[in-house]
């Protein structure tokens, strides 16, 4: 039921996710942050049952921090991080799968490139220019396909995300009142906007 949207533009990635935490007919909260930061220049928007989503996101982000600590501060590229996430999913797949689907995006300082990856719970992985997880794809992939172009600016990417969120609000039967939108670029991960403050408890 979660929606994750992501677009790669010239110098970074935009990752957006809805903020609803629900099970069956009960909505627990509408201010959940489903976009986890992995180090300074990468983030992943994760969908799935809250238990798996939180456990998986924390496991990955802590292992990223551990790698940096154990290897004298050297960082993993976005490509290496995506491969790592995939290997965790692949190993768990035939033991006790993580039921998570995600979009992982980041900015590589070394090559000055933005990179975005689509990964799903079966441990498939694909480098993409844009993508969605969940039902959102049925409504938004066509918009992204039409409006994405090479060397987009950040503002253009954010406009496309807004267009997608608007479409979901209009045509998706499940109401998702709040979305959190994050931007990942050379300056790190910044929250562009949110519907409800995740820290507001």
């Amino acid at each position: 039921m979660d929606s994750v949207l992501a677009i790669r533009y010239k110098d970074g990635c935009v990752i957006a996710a809805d903020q609803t935490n629900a099970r069956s007919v009960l909505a627990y909260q509408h201010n959940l942050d489903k976009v986890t930061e992995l180090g300074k220049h990468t983030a992943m928007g994760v969908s799935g049952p809250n238990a798996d989503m939180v456990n998986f996101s924390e496991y990955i982000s802590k292992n990223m921090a551990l790698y940096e600590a154990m290897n004298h501060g050297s960082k993993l590229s976005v490509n290496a991080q995506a491969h790592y996430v995939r290997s965790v999913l692949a190993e768990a797949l035939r033991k006790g799968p993580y039921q998570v689907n995600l979009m992982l995006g980041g900015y590589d300082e070394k090559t000055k490139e933005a990179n975005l990856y689509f990964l799903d719970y079966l441990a498939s992985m694909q480098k993409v220019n844009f993508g969605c997880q969940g039902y959102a794809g049925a409504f938004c992939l066509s918009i992204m396909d039409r409006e994405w172009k090479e060397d987009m600016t950040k503002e253009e990417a954010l406009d496309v995300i807004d267009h997608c969120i608007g479409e979901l609000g209009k045509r998706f039967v499940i109401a998702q009142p709040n979305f959190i939108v994050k931007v990942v670029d050379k300056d790190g991960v910044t929250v562009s906007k949110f519907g409800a403050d995740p820290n507001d408890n």
Partner: protein
Amino acid sequence: MARRYDSSTTTFSPEGRLHQVEYAIEAINNAGTCVGILSKDGIVLASERRVTSGLLAPTKTSEKTYKLANHATCCVAGLTADANILIDQARLRSGRYQFQYGESIPMEQLVEYVCNHKQSYTQYGGLRPFGVAFLFAGYDDEHGYQLYQSDPSGNYSGWKATVIGANNSSGKSLLKNDYDPDGDGTMPDMVTALKLAVKVLNKTMDGATASTSAEKMELFTMTRDANGEFLHKILVKDEVQKIVDEVAAESDVEMAGGAESSQ
């Protein structure tokens, strides 16, 4: 006095020493010399081949130099059988990293992994340490070309140029003078590095003459081609002989110049 404390690898002596580890390091000082030199666009590893019988039918191309991954290689001083185990470890580690991260393993991580493995034989299990010293050479995006030396204790350090094995101290003193003669931090190019490596081996190999030494020297280079692929090359006999001859010619010129000026 030391005799009581030197049979167990995992026990300190009263002076705070691990004698078995020290004896292992000694074993390497009798082994065939290896020289490693970092150059601007690659790495040179030169080794003394101890086994040169014409009856040898080699199953592998070298007893000294081994490829660990596309971007990494090593040369060995010490017990070859021990080295084989550690080389397998290194290759496995590199392969597993490649599988997990989709990228080549950074050099220091690879070296540290092998060294941690060596170290565990000085602390657990009562098994003897590995009688091997390595020169690891390779490339990664973060630090470029790198050269590391490791010994049986599991200690490692990074170098611009170094020597292990027999007569390594005289080799090292030659490198100190000749690696960066103006002391301005410039690295030699590949040709200069190869000649310097031969010069070092000439010094460390006893009684080496130009006619016999090419047979006994193994020269290895790692460079990159135009596509960024790594080229691992063990020079053939003619190429080695050419460099040996060039070095001999240069040193004759030096000797002649020296003789003149002393008059």
